[in-house]
């Protein structure tokens, strides 16, 4: 006797914009997670898709009726054309269904032959999910861990990528006069599976589907374009809307069946009728097979025609139109790998000068390169490095100096770098030291050995500028994130957590107590939770709206409106 598990959900057109609908005890989850990694790991048997059209539906009560065409088709593992409720094939249309939209019920049969909860944990151990074998994990929602957050150039859209290879795009509501206090909240706009886990047969390695970075292209027409990348492959996605459909075909009847031309006596012109908004995401380009090592950065050039992708040892330049060629512009791989002492950690194009880019290294250095100088930018134009502070020197000096993120200011005059304990702002014209250094969590300096022990010292935090380059923000532990005002030199520590923030509540500044005496609201260093780290944050390009990713939760904070 085999236990049958079934996942049912609603897909409106594309599995991109979905709503949760409860239609019975067999519903497990909405189908926006069409390939939930947790299922994949547990499931040992084959998958099967069937579709069922729906019958009448007052409101949202759906009645299911299988189409006779599908009774046999399921075995092919693919879907045939949609069927109308009477069972004959028909294209998807407003007429089929309750008129509210073109809803398709998609059902996935999971036929596990062996389900073992323990197998999931073992699976995770053998898969290298992260480097640490010492920390505790929350296995259940590992796939939902957000791995990148990015606003688009207008701030209208916010994209997140997660460890399961999914991209979720949020869109800001149009502000309405009726609800002035709601300054445009962000709602889910589109969800799609960007990357799947792959298997590299040559190396016998599994390539993680985790989205390392998302970068938006500036909008040039009605559609939105973004680049998303995992360790090896960059993809260009087009996200577009459909809100009209043609109606009144001559050769097909209302339900899509072909009409016998002999029966047609009149002709009509098809008209475009509005339909419910449908958002679809399609992969437009796949840029693969150009990186031997793990891609850590992508950056769109200001010419909007090229972009670069950087891995540990190389940086490649791509043209958006061409997927089978890329130019290698930086290569720091030594001839003898035994001499390897430094890797590339991040790279970014200058916001205005399309020939200039920077890349940071694991030794705490930044190199600025000009592509006009030579084809292979192995010789930098500028080299930024701060001399080591002898009083702070330790065995961990190099690890904590490793730069985890580098970002140009919007003006293009400064770069900001994040290493383990500090954020630094550099003037492009001064290479020998940063112009500003901000301590993110200096109280950890005396705990470096423990942080080395549990691998936290290798965490890679990102940093962001606000729209006017006056405030910088970065994350820390215990779900804390920090903001530094460059003009007033004031800083604040805030916390992103459900317990401490209700909707519309003002965030309370937090403080970490380092000395002996702890005040009431302070947290002592010893009670910080190092599994709750904020690595990814984003700042709206022009307004004071920030997005903070705390493990598998996304928080969006806005300035208080008076």
């Amino acid at each position, binding site marked *: 006797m085999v236990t049958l598990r079934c996942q049912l959900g609603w897909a409106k057109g594309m*599995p991109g914009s979905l709503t949760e609908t409860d239609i019975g005890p067999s519903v497990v989850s909405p189908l926006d997670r069409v390939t939930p990694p947790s299922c994949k790991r547990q499931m*040992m*048997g*084959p*998958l099967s898709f069937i579709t069922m059209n729906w019958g*009448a539906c007052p409101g949202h009560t759906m009645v*299911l009726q*299988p189409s006779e065409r599908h*009774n046999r088709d399921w*075995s*092919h*593992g*693919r*879907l*045939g*054309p*949609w069927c109308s*409720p009477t069972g004959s094939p028909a294209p998807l249309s407003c*007429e089929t269904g309750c008129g509210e939209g073109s809803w398709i019920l998609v*059902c996935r049969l999971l*036929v596990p*032959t062996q389900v073992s909860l323990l197998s999931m944990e073992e699976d995770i151990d053998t898969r*290298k999910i992260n480097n640490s074998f*010492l920390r*505790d994990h929350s296995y259940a929602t590992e796939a939902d861990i957000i791995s990148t957050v990015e606003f688009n150039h207008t701030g209208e859209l916010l994209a997140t990528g997660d460890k399961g290879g999914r991209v979720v795009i949020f869109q800001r509501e149009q502000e309405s006069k009726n609800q002035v206090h709601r300054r445009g909240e962000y709602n889910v706009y589109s969800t799609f599976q960007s990357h*799947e*886990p792959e*298997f590299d047969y040559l*190396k016998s*390695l599994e390539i993680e589907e985790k989205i390392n970075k998302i970068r938006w*292209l500036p909008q040039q*027409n009605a559609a939105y*374009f973004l680049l998303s990348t995992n360790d090896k492959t960059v993809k260009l996605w087009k996200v577009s809307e459909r809100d009209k*459909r043609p109606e009144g075909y001559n050769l097909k009847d209302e339900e899509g069946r072909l009409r016998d031309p002999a029966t047609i006596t009149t002709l009509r012109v098809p008209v475009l009728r509005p*339909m419910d908004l449908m958002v679809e995401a399609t992969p437009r380009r796949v840029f693969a097979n150009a990186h*031997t090592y793990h891609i850590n950065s992508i950056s769109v050039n200001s*010419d909007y*025609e*090229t972009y670069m992708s950087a891995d540990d040892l190389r940086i490649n*330049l791509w043209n958006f139109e061409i997927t089978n060629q890329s*130019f*290698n*512009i930086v290569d720091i791989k030594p001839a003898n790998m*035994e001499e390897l*002492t430094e890797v590339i950690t991040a790279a970014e194009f200058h916001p205005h000068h399309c*020939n200039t880019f920077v890349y940071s290294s694991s030794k705490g250095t930044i190199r600025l390169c000009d*592509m*006009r*100088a030579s*084809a*292979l930018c192995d010789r930098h134009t500028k080299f930024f490095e701060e001399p080591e502070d002898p009083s702070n020197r330790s*065995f*961990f000096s*190099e690890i904590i100096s*490793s730069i985890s993120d580098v970002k140009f200011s919007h003006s293009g005059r400064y770069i900001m770098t994040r290493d383990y304990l500090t954020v630094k702002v550099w003037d492009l014209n001064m290479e020998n030291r940063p112009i500003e250094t901000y301590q993110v969590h200096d109280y950890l300096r005396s705990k470096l*050995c423990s*942080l080395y*022990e549990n691998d936290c010292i290798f965490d890679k935090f990102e940093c962001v500028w606000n729209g006017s380059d006056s405030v910088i923000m970065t994350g820390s532990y215990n779900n804390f994130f920090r903001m530094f005002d460059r003009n007033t030199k004031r800083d604040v520590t805030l916390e992103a957590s459900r317990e401490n923030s209700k909707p519309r509540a003002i965030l309370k500044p937090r403080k970490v107590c380092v000395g002996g005496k702890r005040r009431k609201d302070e947290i002592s*260093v*010893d009670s910080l939770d190092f599994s709750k780290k904020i690595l990814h944050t984003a700042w709206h390009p022009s307004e004071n709206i920030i997005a903070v990713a705390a493990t598998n939760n996304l928080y969006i904070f806005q300035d208080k409106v008076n």
Partner: protein
Amino acid sequence: MMLSKGLKRKREEEEEEEPEKEALAVDTWWLDPRLPAVAQAPPAVPSNSLLDLSVLKLHHSLRQSEPDLRHLVLLVNTLRRIQASMEPEATLPSVPSPPEAPGVAADSLLASSDAALSASMASLLEDLSHIEGLSQAPQPLVDEGPPGRPSGGAPPGLGALDLLGPATGCLLDDELEGLFEDIDTSMYDSELWAPASEGLKPGPEDGPGKEEGLELDEAQLDYLLDVLVGTQALERPPGPGR
């Protein structure tokens, strides 16, 4: 407790681990003692546990199927620092040399771990470069001229991408394939399923999918589907006429 539960040791004969609450105190013993600023630091030699910890981490990292290069490089550099401070007079060998120092436990451990370290690092990094040579499919081209210069005056290429999409508003047959492109179909793209359907595309994980897909035969799945479908079949009441 503040940090992790402590290092999981594999070897039985480890010296006693420092109790956790010591780890919370300001620890300076690992600061480089050669510098005068650290006058108050205790012994000049870093504790063996730091060396052991680092070696353990390195071995663990090397054992990964695809090691994180940054992690590896930082570990190796840190280990070299530790070794350099433990044997300040000896030059740091990149080729393993036999331990010549007499039997201080630290020294032999150091030398052997250094040998193992160098050997592992060398072999690993060599493997990486071999594999890279094999797996690079399209060779990256090196342009003669500066590749970053934009083609002057040309409109951004993305406008062209729009033309490729279908213009109609409703989903026609061809589009249905695209509808489910992002759904992982690898599990059932196997002989168990008749591949005759025109829409079938091979999934990326054909290998693992096939082995697991043959567990149930078609008749069993037929039955299961009928069960599901049968319980859900209902009449559709006449609608208001759309």
